[in-house]
């Protein structure tokens, strides 16, 4: 049983409940809640990305545009327009979905390596848009954002309240992704990943499926970015840069492509590593991240969870 992979059998459920219990208890065990909240935002981002690369086989090199774009929209609505956080989040997600629709419509006209290059180029275009647009604050970004009150009632200013808000959304996203992958729709996506011409010959409108997957992924990536804005009180250019698109690829790859636990594990590792290194290695952090990236591609393509699954399988067989 690949419980890490599917998460639907009994051991899988137990493992996930244990993980959830740890996440619920974590703030009371002396772990800084904002750190985990930030990691959870990136985990949502990585789950969104994995939905596209891991289950549909589309490598987007421009996902930062949706992550950071939604962050800007939410930040601006909360900061300048004084919207309540849940409405601003929703608007951010919708904006990301709209961007995803446009980018997706253009990018799915080519496949494979071209798809990656096109998404990268379009994301760079959006980067310049956000750099120059009047509402984003240019190089400074939008800073000092108040988190506001959920539904106008429940204040999110306390770190603990915010943490549980993020955790609830994370669990919802996780279950949603699980549902999507195991639905008939998800099966068609996997068929497209494995053999696109065959999916076409079976009568599936492959472009529609791919486009919907792209929009879904963009929207979820946007949710991660918009949440991160609330966690860190800011939205910056950093979130829309191409380096950020690379980072989410690394998270997914390091954790394990096409597995459920992979992106989450990868996000926690990369965010944790960055926090750990920023004090000790300073500007060398980027180089170290690059080295891990290269090692993953050359020698460790299954990722941590993928290797665990393979080990489990071998043990069962032998």
């Amino acid at each position, binding site marked *: 049983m690949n419980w890490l992979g599917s998460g639907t059998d009994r051991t899988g459920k137990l493992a996930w409940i244990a993980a959830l219990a740890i996440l619920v208890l974590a703030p009371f065990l002396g772990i800084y809640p904002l750190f985990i909240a930030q990691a959870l935002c990136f985990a949502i981002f990585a789950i969104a990305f994995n939905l596209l690369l891991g289950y549909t086989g589309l*490598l987007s*090199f421009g996902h930062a545009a949706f992550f950071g774009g939604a962050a800007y929209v939410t930040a601006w609505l909360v900061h300048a327009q004084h919207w309540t956080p849940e409405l601003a989040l929703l608007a951010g997600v919708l904006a990301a979905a709209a961007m995803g629709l446009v980018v997706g419509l*253009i*990018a799915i*006209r*080519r496949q*494979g*390596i*071209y798809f*990656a*290059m*096109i998404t*990268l*180029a*379009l994301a*760079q*275009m959006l980067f*310049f*848009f956000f*750099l*120059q647009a009047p509402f984003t604050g240019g190089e400074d970004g939008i800073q000092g954002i108040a988190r506001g009150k959920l539904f106008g009632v429940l204040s999110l200013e306390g770190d603990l309240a915010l943490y549980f808000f993020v955790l609830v959304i994370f669990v919802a996203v996780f279950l949603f992704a699980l549902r999507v992958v195991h639905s008939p729709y998800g099966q068609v996506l996997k068929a497209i990943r494995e053999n696109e011409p065959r999916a076409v010959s079976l009568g599936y409108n492959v472009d529609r499926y791919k486009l919907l997957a792209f929009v879904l992924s963009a929207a979820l990536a946007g949710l991660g970015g918009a949440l991160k804005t609330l966690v860190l009180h800011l939205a910056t250019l950093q979130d829309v840069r*191409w*380096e950020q698109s*690379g980072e989410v*690829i690394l998270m997914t*790859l390091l954790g394990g492509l096409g597995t459920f636990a992979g992106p989450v594990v990868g996000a926690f590792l990369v965010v944790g590593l960055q926090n750990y290194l920023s004090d000790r290695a300073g*500007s*060398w952090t*980027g*180089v170290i*991240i*690059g*080295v891990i*990236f*290269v090692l*993953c*591609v*050359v020698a460790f*393509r299954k990722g941590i969870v993928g290797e665990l699954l393979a080990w489990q399988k071998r043990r069962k067989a032998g």
Partner: protein
Amino acid sequence: MQALFGQLLIGLINGAFYAMLSLGLAVIFGLLNIINFTHGAQYMMGAFCAWFLLNKAGVGYWWALLLAPIIVGAIGIVIERTMLARLYKLDHLYGLLLTFGLALIIQGVFRNEFGSSGLPYQIPSELTGGMNLGFMFLPIYRGWVIVASLVLCFSTWYVIERTKLGSYLRAATENPTLVQAFGVNVPLMVTLTYAAGAALAGLAGVLAAPVIQVTPLMGSNLIIVVFAVVVIGGMGSIIGSIVTGLVLGLLEGLTRVFYPEASNIVVFVIMAVVLMIRPAGLFGKEK
């Protein structure tokens, strides 16, 4: 009028760099099926090589034009032999990811050593000054960059399309196994092709050094524009990528005159339009 011609000149120079870099990408892609994300970093390394040679070893511009590509190409051989060669049997996307990681490493190292500010590189004394063309003033060095890059592009085209070596290369692109069966050492050819592509990027870097400031990040944004250029041109033809590069540079220059806010994104907008009308690119062949 002066401003227009000035911007067109800058556009033409940018276009020359687009052409050189997309050419190198196309050559590498043709044989290795890998999109070389490290290309921007290799271009940057070429410029830094020139800077090092001049400021640390006292070696001038003309020698740098020869030595820097050799150094960058040699590093390319190491990269190809130790890392890229392990990926040929896998999905092409892994090649893109690997070279992306390498670009992060190389740029990160240079950034730590030199910061983000630019290092100036002297224009060689033979090419200083300028001439008055009547309608505009042309700095000699800029004219030299355009001529040199055109010569470079067309000699690459000549080697690939008109020589025996080029015919092997084209044959190996179509069917490597068969070419190997005829006794051609294909793995060696693959390695040398990657080195040549990297060297081309390094050479472009040397040419660029006196025009722009030498900075660790000079290649990182450029490479994304070059990707867009490659998508617009399609990678089917060498001439196609040269023409596309030059024309897009010019269009960018024109945009800078008439609507400067859009000059950063005009290439990407053109890419989107081309994809809607001709998904395979202007010179690409539909598979």
